[in-house]
């Protein structure tokens, strides 16, 4: 039904036209300005590190891109087309997957049902859409196996039986295996062991090499500096830096973040 793939070829280098273009976006909760006049372009086949301190507006920006909240001002373009209606369903249909920190899995559903939530495969019987349970089971079992989760995990069991790390891995696996165009990772390495962390970072690079746009959110500048093509720094809801990785050292970037946060103490924070 929804594959996310549009069948276009994906060149490895950055094409001229941005895949996601954010123009002068602002978002305010009443008189609190979470984002102010942020403009940034994301291109196909690049790995962008979105960095900033807590409350800088990273998650807010991601929520706008993945359709969870509409911006109060400014415009968002996807593949040259302006987004009018903001809804996660639309973002997913466009081939945009977001791995969020706290949300994304329903504890009461089975592993398989979580895997396909929102885009369940169906078999039509008398024209009625019935869940294709065989496909759900097989596809999700493959993912569980491919991403090295415990063998004892039965895809018909509730996802609540998985540990925190396993859940995170599963979310990443889900985002990756659907053929998408954009993968957004919001602090993907939280709750992960060192070995798992390395795997996630390798994965991000692999995805980029496959021609996807990867937006990687973190507050760990040193980690992202190793793998990203470009670093975007947000501070107090504003974009303060947008440089290719090679243009600045990790230490210099860290300095920017540190200085920025000093002026932010007066403002209320949004998590």
């Amino acid at each position: 039904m929804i594959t996310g793939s549009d069948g276009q070829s994906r060149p490895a280098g950055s094409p001229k036209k941005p895949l996601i273009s954010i123009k002068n976006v602002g978002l305010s909760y009443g008189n609190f300005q979470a984002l102010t006049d942020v403009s940034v372009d994301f291109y196909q086949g690049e790995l962008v590190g979105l960095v900033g301190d807590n409350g800088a507006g990273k998650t807010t920006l991601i929520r706008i891109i993945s359709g969870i909240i509409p911006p109060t001002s400014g415009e968002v373009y996807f593949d040259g087309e302006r987004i009018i209606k903001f809804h996660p369903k639309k973002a997913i249909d466009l081939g945009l997957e977001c791995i969020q920190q706290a949300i994304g899995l329903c504890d009461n559903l089975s592993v398989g049902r979580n895997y396909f939530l929102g885009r369940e495969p169906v078999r039509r019987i008398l024209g009625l859409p019935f869940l294709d349970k065989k496909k759900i089971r097989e596809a999700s079992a493959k993912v569980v196996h491919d991403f090295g989760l415990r063998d004892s995990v039965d895809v018909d069991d509730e996802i609540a039986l998985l540990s925190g790390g396993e859940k995170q891995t599963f979310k990443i696996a889900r985002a990756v295996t659907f053929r998408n165009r954009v993968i957004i990772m919001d602090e993907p390495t939280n709750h992960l062991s060192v070995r798992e962390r390395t795997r996630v970072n390798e994965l991000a690079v692999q995805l980029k090499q496959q021609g996807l746009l990867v937006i990687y959110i973190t507050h760990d500048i040193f980690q992202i500096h190793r793998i990203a093509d470009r670093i975007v720094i947000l501070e107090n809801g504003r974009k303060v830096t947008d440089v290719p990785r090679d243009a600045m050292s990790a230490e210099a970037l860290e300095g920017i973040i540190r200085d920025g946060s000093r002026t932010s103490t007066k403002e209320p924070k949004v998590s």
Partner: protein
Amino acid sequence: MRAAIAHLVRRHPEGGTVTLVVLISLTFAIVTGGSWLSTGNLQSLSQLTAVLAIMAFGEAIVIATGQIDISVGSVSGIGALTFLGLAPVVGSGFGLVAALLFGVLIGGINGVFVAFLGIPSLLVTLGTLFLFQGIGYAVTSGFSFAASNVVRKQFIYNGFGGGTVAGVNTGVIWALTILVVLQLAVFEMPVGNRLLAIGGDAASSFSRGVNVTRIKFGVFVVSGVLAALSGALDAAFIGYADGSFGAGMELSAIAAAVLGGCHLAGGRISLIGTLLGAFILRGIQSFLIILGVQPQWYILVVGLIVVLAGLADRTLTRLVLKR
């Protein structure tokens, strides 16, 4: 052993209820010397169960999304009054359609407040409970709500609770039909997957592209229609309705759902369990009547059973979710 039980319970949340039904049925049958299982009693019991179960199915669907609908008692009253009030005038077919439309309307009102305005469902449905109870009282002071002999012969009237097929009230057939339809919709279709997802974690399901607002709205409409249908079926069975129709049924419907293994927090329901829960509630009443105990004991026993069922279910769930 424990793992095996855990596995069984995990796949079949109604397992506890089924066991309880078997135990209760056996006990009741033995204690009453078999008369609890007499044809007459089972006929009456099945009709009562069907009416309560249809209402409780709607309640279960609402509970699945983590909401609650306590207006169902009033809605079933309005359904009954509309059906019997209009049947003599425009025929039972149109009467029934009108009753169901009222169900849609009231369910829609609940849905708008809950899904679009984001007001807690307990309060919204508390408001509509009062609102339509008052309307029920008001209309019954001036009009008559009885099925005339002409109406009683109509096919639709008999097909919707007024008649029997092979000794079984047609309402029972509707209850089973609805059970099958809902069972398929909730557990075999995408919409059911999303419904349960909302009950489990609304924010997560929204982030996966589930239209939370529409589904929340939808469950209240379904609940409204089923409550109105349940009222119409019982009204057709009795042939008369008054302002007290459906009063207090909301609590029985919630109790049936809880007994059936539905979690009030949402995300985990069993429709078969709900049917059995309704059967247990009604079965206890008939058991007490056969024993010649005053029915006043009934609500006391129901109170105890609701809490005990909650405790049993809690223990089972804990067992299930142990890693």
